[in-house]
């Protein structure tokens, strides 16, 4: 059965007990992202500590893939530098959009490699990326408000 290729145990585990679920205060920036084809939504908050991602929290109204992905994201970026986290994001995105032809690096992506199977289903790639897009947007927003403070 091909289903197990997409829904690997790791994914189902994260889906059942998602890390970072539930919005938390305080935070530096928030982003709401939506998948226009299915209406799924994620709201994601980022708290930075200097240059480090201190906390990620999110509320995801979506399928197993989008929820598990947000959970894995939380694991992968918390405690990393912003720069590192964006590098991980890049690797995740490359794999997700790679149509199953990109060999993921487990050292970089950790549990994220489980999403390699999703890459073979183009209609689900957006689900896997929803949380990551929210994270990217939130980081950009927090940097923008930072620089506003700096110039203020």
């Amino acid at each position, binding site marked *: *059965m*091909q*289903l197990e290729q*997409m*829904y690997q145990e790791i994914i*189902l585990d994260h889906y059942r007990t998602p890390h970072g679920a539930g919005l938390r205060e305080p935070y530096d920036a928030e982003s709401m992202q939506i998948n226009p*084809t*299915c*209406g*799924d*939504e994620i709201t994601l908050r980022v708290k930075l500590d200097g240059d480090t991602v201190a906390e990620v929290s999110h509320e995801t*109204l*979506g*399928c*197993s*893939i989008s929820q598990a992905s947000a959970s894995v994201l939380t694991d992968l970026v918390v405690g990393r530098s912003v720069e590192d986290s964006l590098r991980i994001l890049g690797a995740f995105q490359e794999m997700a959009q790679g149509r199953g032809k990109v060999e993921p690096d487990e050292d970089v992506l950790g549990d994220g490699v489980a999403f390699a199977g999703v890459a073979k*289903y183009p209609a*689900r790639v957006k*689900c896997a990326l929803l949380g990551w897009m929210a994270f990217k947007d939130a980081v950009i927003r927090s940097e923008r408000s930072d620089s506003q403070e700096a110039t203020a």
Partner: protein
Amino acid sequence: MSLDVTKIRGDFPILARTVRGGRPLVYLDSGATAQRPRQVLDAERSFLEQHNAAVHRGAHQLAEEATDAYESARARIAAFVGADPGEVVFTKNATEGINLVAYALSNASSGCNAAGFPGAERFEIAAGDEIVVTGLEHHANLVPWQELCRRTGAVLKWFEVGEDGRLDLDSDPITPRTKIVAFAHQSNVLGTVLPVEELVRRARAVGALVLLDACQSVPHMPVNLTELGVDFAVFSGHKMLGPSGVGVLYGRAELLAAMPPFLTGGSMIEMVRMEGSTYAPPPQRFEAGVPMTSQAVGLAAAVDYLGEIGMDVVHAHELELTALAIEGLSAIPGVRILGPTTTEDRGGAVAFVVDGVHAHDVGQVLDDRGVAIRVGHHCAWPLHRRFGVAATVRASFHVYNTPDEVTALVQGVQAAREFFGVS
């Protein structure tokens, strides 16, 4: 009376293919787009191999033949919905047809455009005028009206949808300021068939125009637009076994005659000078540029095909499948069907949610078993919000579907619950 599905399936080449590693294709997504029988493919191809030319423009033999084929297609499609050929305008899809009417309203209001069309004031719309839709519309019959309101200052109002998936007729927002009432004949999500007669009556009472979105009715049941008494109607070729890239705007002859044009260019003119132009009578006035010639020919072949089966037979067949689907799905714990759960005033679209399993995940399990359905908001996002869900699973039927395929759907939904451990 009854229908030989096996014979019919033989006409559809795509139904013979397999998906996901050898599983037979169970295509339950005809509400999005239907498949095409050999007869339609052949009609289009033989037109292209024998008679293709620009229509209404050339004086050579091919141009004559192509024009005849195109106009014969118009006449057959018109007859299929009880209209006159002059009341059938070819568009690229139903969406264009609705936009055409919405833009004609604002064009009539930008003054001079209406010049030369006696009666065009019928279409003028001013700030504060009202447009009425319903809460179950496809985006195609909602967003163009929102944009018309933006352009003109008109106000959008709507009928609410009841918990049973029927229109709440008590929420009637029609007033003497209502210019047009636009609504679906059949919901593409819930399957609900709307009370056309009653809505036409209420619109008429205040002198409003009526536009019927017949995308989900004309392909599935007998429809006589003249008898329904609507002013405008739209439908798409690709949902009725015909080609993509072609749709129909129906308009009552006297209204089309008074309506200013939308798209302008070649073949819709009467006289062109650099300083200004005048326009041809309908339907030409609304068909600018080289049209979808072979697609119209293909759509006429689709209409012939459906007509030969008989639309009452098609409808009865689809309702039989709908009843089976409702029965089978309702028996699964945690499955909730949105919309009517009987076949009364209903067509063959069945939307549902499965407690604890997201629609995308249900769809994935079904796809893995070869069952093609649609998941998401089906371009009816406000309706989904009204039911408090982001996404539903929708199965929809056409003439080629079988009871066994409904069984495959039901079993697939059970399998999804098992896979995600909610059973």
